[in-house]
């Protein structure tokens, strides 16, 4: 049986009915990893022994009728989530040997539900990048075409799910790091409302923007796992004081009569013909399903990229100050004195994209520049959020492309940071406003997949998944998988 062709729900059913064991399912994926991942490089650490031990425990629980809600289902975790006693590198030399002394809430929750960790996935260093080329552990390849990038920063998670080396993977999204790689790898990727998923133990890049989520093969798979990750966490003061939402409840409900907004500012921009066609086709599908299409205006949306590139670096410049070689992580050889220890540890331990952002952030927060940059960016951020609030008075979801195009060749944009930053032009606004966003496959060009993005109002993950699921019940884009 091709176990990796089953949906998550089918896998769960199979485990429950004892059609196969978790050890079989887990071994199946571990074999696929060992066969294909040398080339893809989507994992930094494969936790084979851990996985088999936990799979065995799940099987025992099934035998004793003590099974947990997601018992025995394999999952890959982005290497940004701390896992006790297991290497957690965040894609950086700085933490290349770091074993976390505690586990993140996301890992703990899924572990408590019986999920089996296959390994830790590759990522752009400290989640900074859109191509997974900034990882200290080498670039990740796109399974659709190995000369192309998988997107970033959750490139390892997207690559391994796309190549069916894992049925699903956790990911994080600060400016598009779930949705952009999902788009480039033909997957469904959802970033929930800011505060839905606990950030405790998720290594910080930009605290007010970071949010955990998943990359999956369908909206249904994503709903199943996102529900398990969500919910209030007293260890994260920005976590919303809400129970985990029931994300499967509305999944099959029709979207007839609901409204989709098209932001005119996005569609005024010139976009490649194949992108335009894919989006138009998706709109037609939604019309056919009974949705109403409405033009909306997000008049400050063009400010999003500059706002993001002030706020995210500013927060990262402080968040990454703790990597100083004093308590854990990389430390330079033979420091002359304290200053040398700090300077050389950080000089040698961080890659160039991380350094670039620390420099931008430090500058933006400096005396004399704070008001002009950081403070102004925060004010503008509020304007963007207000635009969305206004738009959601008239529509249920907002639709746009996820990315300006399909994937690009490795190395193509690595020397041009601005060109690279433009990858996130459609995704960043949702982070600024703290809103949920999902990317789902809706087309392809030259054998590379392309996604569309739906952004929902605050806390309306269920509605986003409902829209995505309706679409996927009527189209086959999400079923296409690369030949690896």
């Amino acid at each position, binding site marked *: 049986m091709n176990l990796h062709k089953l949906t998550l729900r089918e896998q769960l059913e199979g485990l429950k009915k004892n059609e196969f064991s978790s050890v079989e399912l887990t071994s199946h994926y571990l074999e696929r990893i060992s066969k294909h991942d040398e080339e893809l490089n989507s994992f930094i650490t494969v936790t084979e022994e851990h996985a088999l031990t936990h799979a065995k425990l799940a099987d025992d629980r099934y035998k004793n009728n003590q099974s947990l809600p997601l018992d025995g289902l394999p999952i890959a975790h982005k290497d940004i989530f*701390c896992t006790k006693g297991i290497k957690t590198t965040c894609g950086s030399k700085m933490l290349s040997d770091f074993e976390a002394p505690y586990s993140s809430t996301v890992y703990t929750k899924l572990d408590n539900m019986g999920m089996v960790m296959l390994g830790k996935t590759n990522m752009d260093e400290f989640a900074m990048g859109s191509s997974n080329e900034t990882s200290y552990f080498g670039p990740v390849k796109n399974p659709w075409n190995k000369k192309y990038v998988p997107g970033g920063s959750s490139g390892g998670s997207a690559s391994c799910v796309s190549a069916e080396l894992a049925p699903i993977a956790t990911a994080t999204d600060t400016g598009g790091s779930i949705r952009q790689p999902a788009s480039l790898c033909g997957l469904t990727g959802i970033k929930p409302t800011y505060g839905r998923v606990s950030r405790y133990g998720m290594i910080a890049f930009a605290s007010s923007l970071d949010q955990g989520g998943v990359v999956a093969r369908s909206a249904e798979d994503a709903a199943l796992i996102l529900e398990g990750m969500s919910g209030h966490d007293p260890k994260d*003061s920005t976590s919303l004081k809400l129970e985990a939402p029931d994300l499967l409840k509305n999944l099959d409900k029709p979207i007839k009569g609901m409204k989709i907004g098209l932001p005119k500012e996005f569609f005024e921009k010139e976009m490649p013909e194949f992108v335009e066609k894919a989006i138009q086709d998706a709109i037609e599908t939604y019309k056919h399903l009974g949705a109403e299409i409405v033009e909306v205006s997000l008049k400050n949306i063009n400010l999003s990229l500059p706002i993001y590139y002030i706020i995210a670096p500013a*927060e990262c410049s402080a968040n990454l100050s703790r990597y100083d070689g004093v308590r854990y992580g990389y430390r330079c050889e033979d420091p002359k004195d304290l200053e040398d220890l700090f300077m050389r540890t950080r000089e040698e331990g961080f890659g160039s994209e991380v350094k670039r952002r620390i420099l931008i952030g430090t500058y933006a*927060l400096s005396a004399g520049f704070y008001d002009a940059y950081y403070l102004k960016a925060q004010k503008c951020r509020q304007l963007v959020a207000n635009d969305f609030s206004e738009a959601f008075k008239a529509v249920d979801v907002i639709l746009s492309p996820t990315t300006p195009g399909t994937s690009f060749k490795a190395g193509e944009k690595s020397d041009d940071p601005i060109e690279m930053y433009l990858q996130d032009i459609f995704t960043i606004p949702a982070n600024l406003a703290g809103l949920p966003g999902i990317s789902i496959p809706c087309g392809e060009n030259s054998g590379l997949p392309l996604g569309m993005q739906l952004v929902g109002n605050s806390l309306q993950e269920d509605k986003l998944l409902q829209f995505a699921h309706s679409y996927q019940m009527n189209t086959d884009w999400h079923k296409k998988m690369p030949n690896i």
Partner: protein
Amino acid sequence: MNENLKNWEAVIGLEIHVQLSTKSKLFSGASTSFGALPNTQACNIDLAMPGVLPVLNEEVLKMAIKLGKALNANINSPTSFARKNYFYPDSPKGYQISQMDNPIVETGYLDIETENGSKRIGVTRAHLEEDAGKSLHDDFEGQSGIDLNRAGTPLLEIVSEPEISTAEEAVAYLKSIHSIIRYLNISDGNMAEGSMRCDANVSVRKKGDTELGTRTETKNVNSFRFVEKAIQYEIERQVHELESGNKITQETRLYDSQKNTTRPMRSKEFANDYRYFPEPDLLPIILEKDFIQCILDDMPEMPNEKKERFVSQFSLSKYDADLLAADKDIANYFEEVVKISNSPKLSTNWIMGELSAELNNENLNIRDSKVSSEKLGQLILRIEDGTISGKIAKDIFEKMWVSGKEVDIIIKDEGLEQVTDNKEIESMIDEVIANNPEQLEQYRSGKDRLFGFFVGQVMKASQGKANPKQVNDILKSKLEK
């Protein structure tokens, strides 16, 4: 030098760091107790492990609100936290979580007593922040050790307006803050252990000038006495510099208590652009009216209120009331003594006199006094009801201090009851007069000074137990005969 000082005036502002006496840290559950082995009280959050997040200990909000009320200040809601960025090995995150805009306490004042009467000192703000760890340089050859037990301990930084004019005023203000935090039970205020620390901003200007001079900040001053000395030194140093035609450099200086001087810190130790920005890991805190009211309803009587009550209820002088009320434990002890003795004035004298001396002698806090308030109250009661004289009482007090026995037992065991029987005293006096005919002769011929001699002889004969007033009266009438 002193002569020149007359032409100058000092402008002083104090920044006081108060360590709040919570059980756990400001943003983590680790214990705050003092003196544990290095790094045994530092959890993942205190160590700034990747991915950890701060969670505010709500106890500190209550403490800060109480202090705000005692300083007649506004409580800000929302109040928010900010990151203060700087690299130092004992600052594990590379930033300190502090408050910049919207500090929890803002715009208050405190009245202090000076030799020219009462003076009002403005309090700019009081904000919450976390303490750093400690760098240990002595124990490791060529290396430094880091102890993060203290990292994350809650501090309240209380910033005064630059409205203090002398070193004495500065100490009066500092003592007043000390007294308040002890009354509120929000800190032990122990300066030697660092749970209360004081930095002094000092500048000087010619009398009559309106513009402020360049200021220096003196750190590392860890006792009331040193605060006074450091500020006085700094005033004199600055006047001397300016009179010699030099300029004052704006800088941070360290006080050296051994040499009684201040010296500039290396520029590296403080030259920082702290790049404050709002702490994204903590949302602004809205303090509901009910929450604040609930805390205010629970406020204890404050030193100033207590002082006024002592004046009106016990008819004490302002001076005595101030002395007693300054320390909560002393004030409590006093009230317990009065409850038994019924004599506020005598109780005050005993507490400030004999008791204070013994406590100082043995370096004891009044809570650990070897003579309890109850026992001292009984002692004073026995003076009041005439059982013993004041002089005998002092001997008894010494004995109580050593043995811990009660006053009535000592009086009974040692037969120290005062002699108040007129006949008994008369017969003692008759005997003394009969034994000293020569002195009697001299006295009666006008040598009044000898009266004291007779009193002394009688007291001696009674082993100090005769009631002095009765002795005086009877002796006078007998000698006149």
